[in-house]
């Protein structure tokens, strides 16, 4: 299942990005590439952070169930972990917004 998903995903990514890559000189193509990059980047970041939060919470629930007396310490560590992960997602979001709306490469693209 995972192998099939990876094959489909990489084929779709190659097909969709190839035209933009070949026409990299064109400003519109560059905008298209940036849009694709931000969409994929934000999707990956949100999915990865969601997975990380889920795994961390799962481990915290199991730890508290095994040793309820350590619940307080586990809660603090869990909140720290969740906040770190969440700030990573927000960093990715800001970087995507910068790429999309602050146009850091505008001068290079337009020459």
């Amino acid at each position, binding site marked *: 299942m995972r192998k099939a998903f990876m094959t489909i995903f990489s084929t779709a990514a190659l097909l969709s990005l190839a035209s933009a890559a070949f026409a990299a000189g064109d400003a519109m193509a560059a905008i298209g590439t940036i849009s694709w990059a931000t969409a994929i980047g934000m999707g990956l970041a*949100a999915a990865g*952070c*969601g997975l990380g*939060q*889920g795994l961390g*919470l*799962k481990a*915290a*629930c*199991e730890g*508290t169930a095994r040793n309820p007396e350590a*619940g*307080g310490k*586990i*809660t*603090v560590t*869990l*909140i*720290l972990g*969740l*906040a*770190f992960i*969440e*700030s990573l*997602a*927000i*960093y990715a*979001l*800001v970087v995507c*917004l*910068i790429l999309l*709306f*602050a146009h850091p490469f505008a001068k290079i693209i337009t020459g």
Partner: protein
Amino acid sequence: MATLMRNLKDGLERWLFRRGYVHPEVRELVRNQVVLTALVCAACLPFSAVSTAAWSLAAGTLIISLNFCSLAKFGQQITGYGNKREAIAAVLVRFYFRLALTGFVLFGLIVWFGASPLPLLAGITTVVVNFLVWGVARHAGSKTHQTLTGKEA
């Protein structure tokens, strides 16, 4: 001066306790973040009329502080969920909701109000700085230190 600071600290702690931050260490973290936000806003807002970077930094700090306060308040009751799946679903729904809301606010700040992205990122980093300082202070303040083998020295 020291008495005034202690009174302010105690007042803030009591206010946070009434707002639902019952866990002492979580309350300490939230208190530090609130104080840091107040300091950054007090330092930056007087210059906000002349500098985009100043109000962008204050906005970033405010956004991440609200995010963290919301997460910390909910985080205290997560481990009390009976069902692991319920807890994970609740965390994920809230995470994506907060992310969407933060995204909307950041979009508005960058696109409509022309906020400077780098100070915005610096403001968001304050929460990480708060955690690191708290962790270092806690480690330095602990009386027992563990050796590399895990035994207490």
